[in-house]
């Protein structure tokens, strides 16, 4: 919840032009989240038996899991200042993830109609290695910028059994995977965070600056921004 509040605060600051575009990188304690449509039939057991809280959020997308071993990235970007359309932004996020996992030797692809990043090269095959759920709005309520919230979740070394208690993102016939499951290597989250930030910089054409140094541990938000 703290992260959610932090995002909204930052989004408002961004819309008011008080801070530059920012990328938050963090790790959550175990939680299931849904978009506005709720979990509905995508819960495979009762809410009480899940083992982690179930929270409705204001992002797009269906039910998913966040927890230790998963890298969460929340870019807080003013789309209007960046001259990006909403769709280009989502596609760029997917591209960022694909470049990041490529560094670990994983090929991946995106599929029309199924937001997220899937392993392998063939549409209709492969497992989901990263989920994407984005919100766009004008948090300052003024004629200012359109600012993004939420973003993506990349499975690094997360315990995949958490996903067996739900139908992730409402997609019943595909599985979920992680960098560790695909490669047998368990990279440190901080290292993957650095990778992702670099890829983000490359895809979005930005210079990334770390005000506090790259995350040295989990649950630390690191801020990156553009000097352009």
């Amino acid at each position: 919840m703290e992260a959610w509040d932090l995002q909204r605060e930052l989004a408002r600051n961004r819309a008011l032009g008080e801070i530059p575009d920012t990328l938050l990188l963090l790790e959550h304690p175990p939680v299931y989240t849904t978009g506005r449509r709720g979990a509905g039939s995508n819960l495979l057991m009762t809410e009480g038996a899940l083992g982690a809280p179930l929270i409705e959020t204001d992002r797009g997308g269906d039910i998913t899991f966040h927890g230790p071993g998963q890298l969460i990235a929340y870019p807080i970007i003013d789309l209007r200042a960046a001259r990006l359309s909403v769709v280009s932004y989502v596609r760029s996020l997917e591209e960022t993830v694909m470049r990041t996992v490529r560094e670990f030797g994983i090929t991946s692809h995106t599929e029309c109609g199924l937001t997220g990043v899937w392993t392998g090269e063939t549409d209709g095959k492969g497992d989901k290695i990263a989920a994407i759920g984005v919100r766009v709005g004008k948090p300052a309520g003024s004629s200012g910028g359109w600012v993004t919230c939420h973003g993506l979740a990349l499975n690094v070394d997360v315990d995949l059994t958490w996903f067996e208690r739900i139908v992730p993102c409402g997609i019943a016939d595909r599985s979920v995977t992680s960098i560790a499951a695909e490669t047998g290597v368990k990279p440190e989250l901080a290292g993957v965070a650095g990778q992702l930030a670099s890829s983000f910089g490359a895809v979005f054409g930005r210079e990334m600056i770390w005000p506090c140094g790259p995350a040295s541990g989990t649950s630390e938000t690191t801020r990156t921004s553009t000097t352009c």
Partner: protein
Amino acid sequence: MAYTLTMPEVGETVTEGTIEKWLKQPGDKIEKYEPIVEINTDKVNVELPSPVSGTVKEHLVKEGDTVLIGAALATIDEVAGEKPADIAPPKPTEASAALAPAPAPPKETISATTKTAGNGRDDGANRATPRVRKLASELGVDLALVTGTGPRGRIVEEDVRAFAESGSKTGAATAVAQKPAATPHPPAKAGADEEAVALTPIRKTIARRMTESAAVPVAWLVIECDVTGLVALRSARKAAFEERHGIGLTYLPFAAHAVSQALLDHPYLNATWAEDKIILKKRVNLSIAVATERGLMVPVIHDADRLSVTGLALAMTELGERTRDNKLKIEDVEGGTFTLDNTGAFGSILSQPIINTGQSAIITVEAITKRARVVGDNAVGVRSVVNMCLSFDHRVMDGHQAGAFLQDVKRRMEAYGPDSGLD
């Protein structure tokens, strides 16, 4: 009078969206730009603001409904006299459509996909009348990027105004208006015995800033300083300094000290051109050019005038390390008022530095060399000399102020001797 809220265009390939949640119910008061409904498209939740103020009258669609672009969503009894705002999320432009190149080996030439001219033409000038071109130049709009809505793609006044408003404000605020792109040719492709190197973000930034600086009318002055005393001073103190502070003692902190002190007496060198005025900066924030393998970076020592030679040496070493380790903070690269560049490190004896964006001057310290010079009335001796080269913005000052500043710096550089204090 009821205003009808319709579904705006959300993205170039998106034709419909689903109503996620009504944030305002019939009977609720609403302010212009206050969020009224959440719409889900392609896994993105867009929070739509109301274009008008008033009272929500009726929902024409309910949560869970899928609606097409342009469909009526709700009616609002609007407050009279207000012009409805444009509430569509940002639309893609030519530049952004090319943002995410297809997955490919990293060596792909990204440079070819950025900033291609709108409508695939070379520059916009041949699509606009002289009056429109003049307007574009006044608003700082690059015609090559504007999509024309006139007949056969001609750019009309409205296109230029809309473009200027829509976000030509990307990038750090600079006092100089954007110069229209000077390249009429599409970028070259690498040939058979050539290699294309993709542009890193830092390279693109440097290129853009240097291009902006190229629009500044620059004049250049050089002065030679006899630093035989400084060389002796450093030789004498080097070992003890290193022992005490754990870092080497170079000539740069001495130059930085001379420059920072001199700036206090020559304010026009520590200023910026602001179109209709000159802004004199009260603080002396010295930008130091640092070469890294990623490219040139220019971190800032704030209030450099308050530091001694020792303090400057420590600050420079610390900043240099953090720069090379990619650990700079925002504050480290902001607020610089004057730049010092140690071109002497390359062995250079004369160079023409480019003024940093937003500043009015930049000085280099060239290599210190031993030369034969006239000493006394008519004897010749071996002296250590160093050139310091100053580029300055001739809109802000004339040779008079620039020269006076250089004289001051020279005097200080030549005053260093074996008895000078470092702290």
